[in-house]
């Protein structure tokens, strides 16, 4: 019944808007003149009409309806020179536009003068989206000189890294599994390499990253806290080129070019780390046989079939491998693939259909052959998705779509050599079908108001083939039922309202508000405080309820000095239901009854984020400060008392500055400070069984020492040739050599300790690390 209502609503919205007056529609694609890459979020402004414009979607497509007559059209995108077209409109017109990069600062200043403002941050109805393109972060100093969009995102307000050596990140007090990470629409289940020191996103292959932390659009669903939408580059459709970098830890190479000039292109980008290459110089043969590396391969191709159709195929393969001779092996990785078809029904209705594959698995072996055993686990998705953009008129643009994901979870299997004596274990696969349908309208009302409102319906069918268990309070099985293939075990569904609004006070001031509800049907379990590839994904089931996240946010935005400075204050409150924690000493590995190890509770998070950003000139960068809390309540933990989530960093401060000394030299710095993570320390000691034992205090009732770190970077652009440019980039991580705590243990036997008194001993991972990387580009 609910579904039917939803469809009726969709149809109704559709029909009621179709009845609008007959204007002339201009539509087309906005692309980069150098390489034909689609420009996402580029804008078209009608100079002779107030408050009239359009923005390109992720495929570079735009559509706008205006009255017939002579108009001056301005096409514009940040960092590009704007284009003006004066045109006499008599009928629907296709206008494809190529924008050129602004060449240098002088021209940039001219653009500033001619274009009135670049104030998207003020005028769009969407709450602040954190958006990065890899080009803009090139000079920010980073660990081992390896540029990383995920690390840079963690320097922006409300987004907190999991700490050194941890892959996850936290958005506004949400859990590490509450972030939907998409690469060309495919879910990336583990976005880290080398246990979190690098992300899987090779900057050379990435066009654009957007992180939605509030007012999340209805087209996204499935994770309670945020969406990180990463888009791969399409490749240069004008000429062949290559670029790459040689660094201390890894090297990378990208090749791209047209398949048919201006019609289709491809890009292949690879990266491999080689810490282990140096091991061949080691004396011991076993060390020579140690493997420790990761690689990434991104590939994508697209082709335009006529003016109305375009197909894309893209894939990502990445893997970490670690092994010690033949004693021990551990490897994990993601594989994703996306096939997409863009189709233009007419100049107002754009549709994209995608078929998406996504897989994450890990393998773990000890010993070999008859004397060894191995464990493996996997999650695999097939996703079919269709998204429509309907440009109703100048004031309304509608998005709607449907998708269905088939999940297969392989929680784990154990294969054992005959000499080890372990029984083979093969935990049953678990299956689920996750469906979604949404409709959302972006509407301008007058010159001051802009709204985005939508609904998403989500459903989750946990289904056979498999056995469902019921447990009592002590975790004992009380009932079990066997289900056949595709037979529903439990169905959950929910309606998710999404809303954001902006009120423009004047050209440089606005207020925005947003609310969203999101259901999350799959959950990541981790029994260590740092995330690792062996963390287990589990579906919502007859025992596990979907997580529900609600968030309300309010923000004030102001631009100064012709948008040179952008100031914002955002505040939020987030409610989380059906949060998951673990019973003491829960065993998550190869556990067929994993659900009885879980306890359920709720959470809340709130905070205020201040940011000042300088976007133009020789000195650019930002400063932000966040005051926030992230709290959880579980009946089974400390008798239901509210406690801090690990990521409850009360104060969080970031400073990022880039200064262009001259055309050849750019220096940069970043500084990070945050309150130490909330952790559980002993609150007493006692003797038992001949051991000195810690009495565990309140959950997360203590703090690690505060974290702070300063990094410096220098990029030196070497002499440019006609078809070749190159640079050297130097960076120093942790300049003043702060030993930040990775973990703390309590021991009376650390080094020489004559009194035998217990001491707190911290482990720090990184001291000062200088690095150098050579980057080149063949044009």
């Amino acid at each position: 019944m609910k579904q039917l209502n939803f469809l009726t609503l969709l149809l109704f919205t559709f029909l009621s808007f179709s009845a609008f007056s007959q204007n002339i529609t201009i539509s087309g694609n906005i692309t980069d003149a150098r390489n034909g890459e689609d420009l996402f979020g580029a804008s078209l402004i009608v100079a002779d009409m107030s408050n009239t414009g359009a923005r390109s979607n992720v495929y570079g497509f735009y559509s706008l309806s205006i009255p017939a007559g002579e108009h001056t059209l301005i096409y514009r995108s940040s960092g590009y020179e704007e284009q003006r077209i004066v045109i006499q409109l008599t009928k629907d017109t296709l206008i494809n536009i190529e924008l050129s990069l602004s060449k240098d600062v002088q021209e940039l200043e001219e653009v500033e003068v001619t274009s009135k403002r670049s104030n998207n941050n003020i005028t769009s109805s969407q709450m602040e989206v954190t958006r990065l393109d890899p080009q803009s972060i090139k000079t920010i100093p980073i660990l081992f000189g390896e540029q990383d969009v995920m690390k840079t995102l963690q320097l922006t307000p409300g987004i907190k890294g999991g700490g050194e050596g941890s892959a996850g990140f936290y958005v506004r007090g949400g859990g590490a599994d509450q972030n939907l990470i998409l690469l060309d629409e495919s879910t990336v289940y583990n976005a880290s390499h080398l246990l979190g020191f690098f992300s899987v996103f090779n900057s050379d292959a990435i066009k654009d990253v957007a992180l939605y932390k509030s007012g999340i659009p209805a087209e996204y669903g499935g994770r309670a806290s945020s969406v990180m939408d990463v888009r791969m580059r399409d490749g240069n459709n004008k000429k062949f080129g290559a670029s790459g970098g040689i660094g201390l830890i890894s090297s990378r190479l990208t090749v791209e070019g047209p398949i048919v000039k201006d019609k289709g292109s491809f890009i292949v980008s690879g990266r491999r780390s080689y810490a282990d290459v140096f091991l061949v110089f080691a004396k011991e043969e076993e060390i020579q046989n140690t493997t420790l590396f990761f690689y990434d391969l991104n590939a994508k191709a697209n082709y335009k079939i006529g003016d109305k159709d375009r197909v894309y195929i893209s894939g990502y393969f990445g893997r970490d491998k670690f092994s010690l001779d033949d004693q021990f092996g551990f490897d994990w990785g993601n594989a994703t693939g996306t096939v997409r078809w863009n189709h233009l029904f007419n100049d107002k209705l754009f549709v994209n259909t995608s078929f998406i594959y996504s897989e994450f698995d890990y393998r773990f072996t000890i010993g070999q052959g008859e004397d060894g055993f191995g464990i493996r686990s996997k999650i695999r998705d097939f996703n079919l998705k269709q998204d429509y953009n309907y440009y109703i008129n100048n004031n309304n643009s509608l998005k709607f779509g449907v998708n269905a994901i088939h999940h297969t979870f392989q929680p784990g299997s154990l294969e054992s050599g005959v000499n080890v004596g372990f029984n083979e274990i093969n935990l049953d696969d678990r299956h689920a079908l996750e469906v979604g349908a949404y409709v959302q309208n972006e509407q301008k009302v007058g010159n001051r108001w802009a709204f985005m409102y939508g609904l998403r319906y989500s459903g989750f069918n946990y289904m056979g083939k498999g056995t469902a268990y019921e447990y009592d309070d002590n975790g004992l099985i009380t009932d079990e039922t066997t289900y056949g293939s595709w037979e529903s075990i439990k169905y959950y569904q929910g309606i998710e309202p999404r809303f954001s609004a902006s009120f423009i006070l004047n050209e440089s001031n606005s207020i925005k508000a947003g609310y969203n509800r999101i259901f999350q049907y799959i959950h990541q379990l981790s029994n260590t405080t740092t995330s690792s590839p062996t963390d287990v994904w589990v579906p919502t089931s007859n025992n596990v309820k979907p997580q529900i996240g609600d968030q309300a946010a309010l923000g004030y935005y102001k631009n100064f000095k012709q948008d040179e400075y952008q100031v914002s204050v955002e505040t939020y409150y987030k409610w989380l239901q059906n949060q998951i924690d673990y019973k003491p000493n829960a065993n998550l590995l190869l556990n067929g009854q994993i659900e009885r190890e879980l306890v359920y509770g709720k959470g809340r998070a709130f905070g205020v984020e201040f940011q000042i950003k300088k976007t133009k000139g020789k000195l650019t960068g930002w400063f932000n400060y966040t005051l926030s809390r992230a709290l959880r309540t579980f009946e089974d933990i400390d008798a239901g008392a509210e406690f801090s989530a690990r990521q409850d960093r009360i104060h969080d401060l970031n400073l990022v500055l880039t200064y262009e000394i001259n055309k050849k030299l750019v220096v940069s710095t970043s500084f990070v400070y945050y309150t130490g993570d909330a952790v559980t320390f002993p609150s007493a000691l006692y003797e038992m069984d001949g051991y000195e034992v810690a009495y565990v205090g309140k959950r997360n009732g203590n703090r690690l020492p505060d974290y702070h770190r300063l990094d410096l970077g220098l990029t030196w652009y070497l002499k440019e040739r006609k078809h070749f440019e190159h640079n050297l980039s130097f960076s120093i991580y942790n300049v003043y050599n702060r030993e930040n705590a990775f973990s703390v243990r309590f021991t009376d036997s650390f080094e020489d300790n004559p009194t035998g008194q217990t001491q707190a001993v911290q482990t720090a991972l990184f001291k000062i690390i200088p690095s150098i990387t050579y980057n080149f580009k063949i044009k």
Partner: protein
Amino acid sequence: MKKLYFLFTISFLVLISSCQKVIDLEVTDTEPKLVIEAKYDAVKEEVFVRLSKSINVFSNDGYTTLTGASVEITDGNGVVTPLVDQADGTYLLENYSPIYSAEYAMKVTVDGETYEASDVLQPVVPLDSLTTEFQPQTPFFDAGYVVYMNVTDPVGDNYYRAIKKINGEYKRELGDQFMFDDDFTEGNIQKVPLFSELYQVGDTVQIDLLSYSEKSYTYFSELRAIAGGGSSSAAPANPTSYWSKECLGHFSVFGYDTKVIVIEE
């Protein structure tokens, strides 16, 4: 399993050059809590109880013990026998013969409060033999002999703890505590390696293989998990207490089988 992964993490971290130091840190002290350590060793036929109090984490003081308590054990037939106060916080009962598969109850009355707990004495699973295997030198281990315990695991849930005595000395390091159950090996002949240490020719290795009840196994596993003083578990918690009133410690009854091997080439 957990241990092997732990090993991996540690070696990985070493590779990226971590560093450690003592730091000043604030912890929240709790008021001293009563600890009752009570055990019945069915092979030695000895019941032992120790009463003490917990201390602050960074305290320099020793542990205070409690004397003058009334301590008694009840066997499966309901026979109550008191323990003798040794006046140093310990209470002792010797020559107390076991009844296997029977439930024993412990009752401690101290400072006007009574604490009770019980445990079942499991039949002892025999340790068939100890065998060795030579392991050549690797970058992470020296050369030496791995000792294997060969156990015929009976059908049904079984819980084990191995205690090592090397060259006449009991090994008391945390890493020497070795506990395992038969989750992966139910009903099989098990060949269980003692990985934590390698032995050289001439070493005498004695293993006491304890058979625990599920309750005691759970308690000591949980105790072991937090005794390391680390903060890496996502759900750190005190071991489940099976005492009738809030206090720390545990009452266990157990028997064991012992085998000795002298390492030969």
